[in-house]
């Protein structure tokens, strides 16, 4: 087993490289993805090795990136589009929700748009405005799209390849503040044996309360669980991985055991993923719940100035505080 220690960023880069190697129809496109290797260097070195028809530096036009990728997909290609930052996906929003998402349905299944839209998302890097947003609910709300996110290098490496191999159009959210975090990656395990793309995973077993998170918040929640354990509480942490479709099998099973659930995400709470998760868990686990499902989220404001983002983002204390409250009911 060829395991290597890689950052999430490098794991994504390696996964993209594998996808380009394995399928000549895979095309990477976006702003600055070629020579520069992307502003986060996720596509570093790929144009050099695969040429500028496989790794395409595009004009500065987000709707153009997605819209032309639709045409390439109709032509039989598998475009992997990079949106430079979360806050710049909105000019492409129409193409994503009206075209990418609906093409299969509108064509009665005759056309597929096997496209991956990679978006570095979320805050925590001290960026200027429009560089720290969490747009997942917009996309998860849209039928025809699938939305996934990774939280560690192994998943990053595998999930990006699974997303590219899938015939479904997938919004692939990359937790940008975690790009530099390292972990073990098994580079040789065949994709066919990999953990399914749309399955959630228990990343820390526990008995007293269930914490649900995804992307950048998984690590925060794991740290919270470590802290809670010192206080004698065993939290079960679930990495959702797939935001659409949601896989709640593990969550239901877990909440039925623990009787308590806390959902954590960076995005604002209003009409967000947390609301959906709370509703579903309540429907499915009503008689097992000891307390209401609680949410720990960003506030319902535009992403604030960087000097106060630590207060905006859910942190260890806010997660632990919510856990405390579920025990106080």
């Amino acid at each position: 087993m060829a395991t290597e220690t890689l950052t999430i960023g490098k794991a994504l880069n390696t996964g993209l490289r594998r996808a380009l190697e394995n399928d000549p129809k895979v095309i990477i496109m976006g702003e600055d993805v070629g020579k520069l290797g992307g502003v986060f260097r996720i596509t570093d070195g790929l144009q050099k090795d695969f040429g500028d028809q496989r790794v395409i530096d595009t004009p500065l036009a987000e709707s153009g990136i997605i819209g032309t990728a639709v045409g390439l997909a109709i032509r039989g290609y598998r475009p992997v589009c990079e949106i430079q930052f979360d806050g710049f996906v909105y000019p492409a929003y129409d193409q994503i929700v009206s075209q990418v998402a609906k093409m299969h349905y509108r064509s009665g299944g005759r056309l597929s748009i096997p496209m991956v839209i990679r978006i570095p998302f979320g805050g925590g890097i001290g960026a200027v405005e429009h560089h720290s947003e969490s747009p997942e609910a917009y996309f998860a709300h849209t039928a025809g799209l699938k939305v996934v996110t990774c939280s560690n290098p192994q998943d990053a490496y595998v999930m990006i390849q699974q997303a590219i191999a899938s015939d479904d159009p997938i919004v692939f959210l990359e937790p940008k503040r975690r790009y530099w975090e390292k972990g073990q990656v098994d580079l040789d395990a065949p994709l066919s044996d990999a953990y399914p793309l749309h399955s959630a995973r228990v990343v820390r077993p526990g008995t007293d309360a269930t914490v649900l998170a995804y992307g950048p918040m998984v690590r925060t929640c794991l740290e919270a669980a470590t802290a809670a354990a010192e206080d004698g509480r065993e939290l079960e942490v679930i990495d959702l991985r797939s935001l659409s479709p949601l896989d709640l099998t593990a969550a239901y099973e877990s909440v039925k055991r623990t009787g308590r659930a806390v959902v954590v995400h960076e995005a604002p709470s209003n009409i967000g993923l947390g609301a959906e998760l709370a509703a579903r868990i309540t429907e499915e686990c009503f008689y097992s719940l000891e307390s209401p499902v609680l949410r720990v989220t960003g506030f319902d404001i535009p992403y604030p100035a960087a000097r106060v983002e630590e207060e905006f983002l859910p942190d260890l204390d806010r997660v632990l505080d919510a856990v405390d409250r579920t025990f106080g009911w």
Partner: protein
Amino acid sequence: MAKGDPGGTTRSRRATPRSRKGAAGDPALVQLLTPEGERIDSATGPDGTEYRVDFTDEEYRGLYRDLVLVRKLDAEATALQRQGELGLWASLLGQEAAQVGSGRALRTQDMAFPTYREHGVLYCRGIDPIMPLGLFRGVDQGGWDPNEFKFNMYTIVIGAQTLHATGYAMGITIDGKTGTDDGEAAIAYFGDGATSQGDVNEAFVWASVFNAPLVFFCQNNQYAISEPLERQTRVPLYQRAAGFGFPGVRVDGNDVLATYAVTRTALDNARLGQGPSLIEAYTYRMGAHTTSDDPTRYRIASEVEAWQAKDPIARVKVFLEKQKIADADFFAEIDEQARRESVHLRERVLAMPDPEPVTMFDHVYPNGSPLLDEQRAKFSRYMESFEGSAH
């Protein structure tokens, strides 16, 4: 011909390779058949390209047949809407020549990306004309296979398809399918209103910098619902192309011969690797925008009458008669064929069944979704809970 009327200014045979301006700055139209049914041997575009066609009598008659059939089927669809059989219809009345001319210029391997009004192009692609009626009746989303017929789905969101066409054309290049005998090209249809959209302008940028084998085919029918051309642009639309770095040409969109010639040339250029071009087919929408629109609120009768005189079908008929390419029997036969086909269309539309409700859950994802499966199953159980329900 009125002064400043672009339809009347082109008469040259060996025109200088310059754009000739008509009165009031109106650029000359590329025209090969005047509204009076006079043939013009050749016409010159703004970049000096010379356009001509060389059809056999049989081909002339075929074009006439196409025009008449397309108009008749469109009229039948309008009537069906009036009788409540379609929810809506976007008529092509007046735009037959633009659509048949460009549609017949396409080769089998070329891919077309239409809006919602391209029933004439759809017909030229060999698609059963009932197909778009399913969409407007609300029984399906348009039932043809885009890959089989090389004619993509109708696109309602204005301008979105121009980007799809551009990406598709980039794919043609990557596939190495330009510059060869079996070369391919793509064509994107859109209206004058669409030229204001960001997507169309992005498509111009992309097609240009990637030298995409693509023809942008704008049917300037003078209105976007109620808004006249002046609300979209202060520059003749074909001239926009220059700013993006590719040729633009304005053709008499009511002239099936010129539209054919201009589109064929543009497609061939694209196929040969010479990149994109923009065709502005200068035409007029004779009817309402759609059946839910009232054009008397925003345009005057005299304008409509002026365009009536430039009817795309009448001029072909005069030409065929004068040249003795077709006789009264032929015209009667075409009318009869059109009548039969429209009756047949009507019968089939009336017989179009509503879809089974549960099929609304089909084809959301190529790979399915467990959440959707759960919802579908619940819905089925709910439908079955009704006594005597067939579902």
